[in-house]
């Protein structure tokens, strides 16, 4: 297909002749994916040539790939031609410049979810880069961060202002060809966050982004890249929400973390994408590739996730422990209720000497949900002194749900010490009776016991996130007992 990347109008019109509805006034691209769409996305963002070429390479490879089927999830085939790959708020000129200009309805939604963005930003000193249907709508505290030399901006802005960093690190942790969804993301990613912490800097505040899928039939393909240079520290919070819709929506994000020598990255996620209704109608398909590279000696990457949303979750935040003495951590609570399906876990790849990793996974299944932990611990032959401890517990609430564990351990160094423990059980009748004898209602007792079950993970979350996570857990399990 001979196309002129500069002539987007022609392309769009040509597509229109093929029957696609194109409303030039609209900011969504018509559904479907071909090279033209990739070029259109790149052109809208006014990207440099290297970015377009990068996207096109990914797209061409993606055409050759088949969607993976190994996960313990079942869903009707996704029609990738029925998805619109780009959607922006009304028009660039109307984009809010500050929180005050943000659509009050959006803020109201945040409020309902117990996320008073306004309050949080002011009181908690959190800088928020909210991604509203793919394009950043509000960025705060930039000045304070800039003072420390921290770069925290929408990905698209980083492409314009810091192309050398983007070019150096983009795809260096999650290669373009990593997997079906990551490759798709590489071709069509809309926006996301970019963070660079310079050498020796402790980021002066927690960085936070809320992702939210708004428009119907819009895939969300954010791409986040965080680079912690030598001796730097950063804590990053990601929250995800989506309004209710009948149709399933695709979300295929990529997050890449790079920790250089002595650097620390803590990445916390509270994922509450719309899970579908109690009959399993609607909900987000969440196919996410998250990976951190402990590239330098003594670096540390810690993932903490609370996954309560999405119809389908397919997500394995991983650590490549390349630097000597580097540390990887994964703390996860995954809740699946009604007809939700979750297949989530982590990979810890030990390459450097004296690397260590910790995995704590708590899965809760209720209703008709299926919840699987899938994890890999691989110790390479050169990884002398590697350590891993994995604790993987499942809690069952109800007769029709499922809880599964699929851990893989591949150990090639004799000085490694690997320990894996897993348990599955239901909430014990004795525990429930004990709480009720103390005057606590059954549902509250269940929430209390479930929160206790998850405590090891919640204590890893920043304080205000931990409270929200507990509330989310209770909301997610509403109606699961009784």
């Amino acid at each position, binding site marked *: 297909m001979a196309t002129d990347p500069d002539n987007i109008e022609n392309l769009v019109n040509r597509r229109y002749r093929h029957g696609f509805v194109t409303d030039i006034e609209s900011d969504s691209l018509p559904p479907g994916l071909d090279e033209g769409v990739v070029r259109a996305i790149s052109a809208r963002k006014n990207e440099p040539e290297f970015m377009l070429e990068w996207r096109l390479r990914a797209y061409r490879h993606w055409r050759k790939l088949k969607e993976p089927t*190994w996960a313990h999830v079942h869903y009707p085939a996704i029609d990738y031609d029925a998805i619109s790959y780009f959607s922006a708020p009304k028009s660039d000129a109307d984009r809010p410049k500050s929180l005050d200009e943000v659509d009050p309805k959006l803020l109201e939604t945040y409020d309902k979810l117990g996320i008073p963005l306004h309050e949080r930003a002011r009181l908690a000193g959190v800088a928020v880069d909210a991604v509203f249907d793919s394009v950043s709508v509000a960025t705060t505290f930039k000045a304070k961060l800039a003072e420390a030399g921290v770069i925290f901006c929408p990905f698209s802005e980083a492409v314009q202002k810091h192309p050398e960093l983007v070019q150096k690190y983009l795809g260096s942790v999650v290669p373009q060809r990593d997997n079906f969804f990551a490759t798709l993301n590489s071709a069509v990613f809309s926006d996301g966050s970019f963070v660079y912490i310079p050498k020796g800097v402790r980021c002066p505040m927690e960085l936070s982004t809320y992702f939210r899928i708004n428009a119907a039939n819009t895939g969300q393909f954010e791409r986040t890249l965080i680079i912690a240079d030598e001796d730097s520290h950063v804590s990053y919070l990601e929250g995800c929400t989506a309004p209710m819709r009948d149709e399933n929506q695709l979300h295929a994000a990529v997050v890449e973390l790079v920790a250089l020598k002595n650097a620390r990255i803590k990445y916390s996620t509270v994922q509450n994408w719309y899970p579908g209704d109690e009959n399993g109608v609607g909900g987000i398909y969440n196919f996410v590739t998250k990976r951190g590279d402990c590239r330098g000696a003594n670096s540390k990457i810690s993932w903490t996730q609370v996954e309560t949303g999405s119809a389908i979750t397919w997500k394995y935040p991983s650590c490549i422990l390349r630097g000597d003495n580097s540390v990887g951590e994964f703390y996860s609570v995954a809740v699946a209720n009604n007809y939700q399906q979750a297949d989530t876990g982590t990979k810890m790849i030990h390459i450097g000497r004296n690397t260590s990793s910790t995995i704590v996974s708590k899965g809760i299944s209720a209703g008709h949900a299926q919840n699987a932990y899938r994890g890999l611990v691989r110790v390479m*032959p050169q990884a002398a002194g590697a350590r891993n401890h994995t604790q993987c517990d*499942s809690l*069952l*609430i*109800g*007769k*029709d*749900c*499922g*809880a*599964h*564990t*699929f*851990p*893989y*351990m*591949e*150990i*090639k*160094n*004799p*000085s*490694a*010490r*690997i*320990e*894996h*423990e*897993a*348990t*599955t*059980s*239901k909430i014990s009748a004795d525990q429930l009776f004990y709480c009720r004898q103390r005057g606590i209602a059954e549902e509250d007792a269940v929430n209390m016991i479930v929160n206790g079950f998850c405590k090891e993970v919640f204590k890893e979350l920043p304080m205000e996130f931990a409270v929200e996570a507990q509330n989310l857990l209770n909301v997610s399990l509403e109606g699961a007992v009784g």
Partner: protein
Amino acid sequence: MKPLLSIDAVRTAVQQLPDNGLAAARLAALTRLDADGLPTATHEDWKYTDLTRIVDVSNRWLAAGATTMPVADAAVAAITDQFAASWLVIRNGMVDARSIAKFAQSDVRIDLLSASDKALECDAPLSGLNVALLQDGLAIRIPANIEHAGTVGLLFIDHAAADVGVSQARIVIELEGGSAADFIEYHSSTGDAAHYANTVIELRLADGARCNYVRVQDRQAGHDQTGRLTATLGADSRLQHAAFDLGGNLVRNDLDIKLVGRGSATSFSGLYLAGREQHVDNHTRVDHLVGPTHSEQEYRGIAADAARCVWNGKAVVHRGADGTNARQANHNLLLSAAAEIDAKPELEIYADDVKASHGTTIGELDQGALFYLRTRGLDEAAARCLLMRAFAEKIVVRSPLPAIRQTISEKVAERVAALIVGDAK
């Protein structure tokens, strides 16, 4: 491109087999094998075990005329004399009729598979290959409420000299309601040429039956083996199983237990001791189809030299199987930089009144214990040997059939000692 099993050559070999009661089953299995082929690494259950070598040996054997070599009586006696058991012997896939005759007065009923009307399990790809090339096999039956005294020995012995050899063997064992019997299954081989043995045991325990079962595999260093045991357990029946893998080259064992009757329970364990370039893969799967049912397993392994050991334990608790208890444990010692341990403990649970757990450890010998022993005057090799034996002995003492534990313990000790010196060639 991986070598593929030559189906045409298999077909030719099938046509040469004796025209007995198995002919129709062979052809059906062949058709299925032709359609499905043998599994490759993309198949989740075969992720860690590459069958290329086995396909290659099989193709060479087929090309050389698919002949069966005799196995000397002395080689048989060398094994059977070690254990107090009445032995049924299969030599290079050929049922030894004389060994059956010895059971004429016994309460154990034995028939040739070709003379029985058993439907043979053919679900796994290698099970299909087994049926297609099966000369004959055994059907063993313990009548209802009979408690058979003494141990029934099942010896699979092969020999390959000058030319490569391949053998298929299958035994169907039925314990009728309320009966009880003990078995030892032993795999042995001799000869320097390449050999591949593929065995399938089908074990069926009716309500209230009890079975103790020990499997020992001590094949020649260059010989490959795939073995599969499927067991179905009726109500209130008990299966205790222990497996010891000491020899062989590429070894893959599948233990597949279905708890179909309420109150059934199984306890099984395994020990794999691998050095050289051995590849020992144990896959276990237990299906809790009803509740209450119990399963408990513990496997232990040591990988030395350039060996690779795989353990994949899976417990599936099906919908409605309430009151289920499923426990898995797997412990490994990794002793060399060139060795590898792969462990995959899986739980799939679709019921809620369930207690399930697994624990896995992989590591080197406890340095503290090693140091302690050396301060007591043991040299390092002796200290290592002591710790490794203690590690392995945990499975020996768990195994059923106390009468043969001593012999097995000695074999384990011998194998541990060989691992320490690196299998002097």
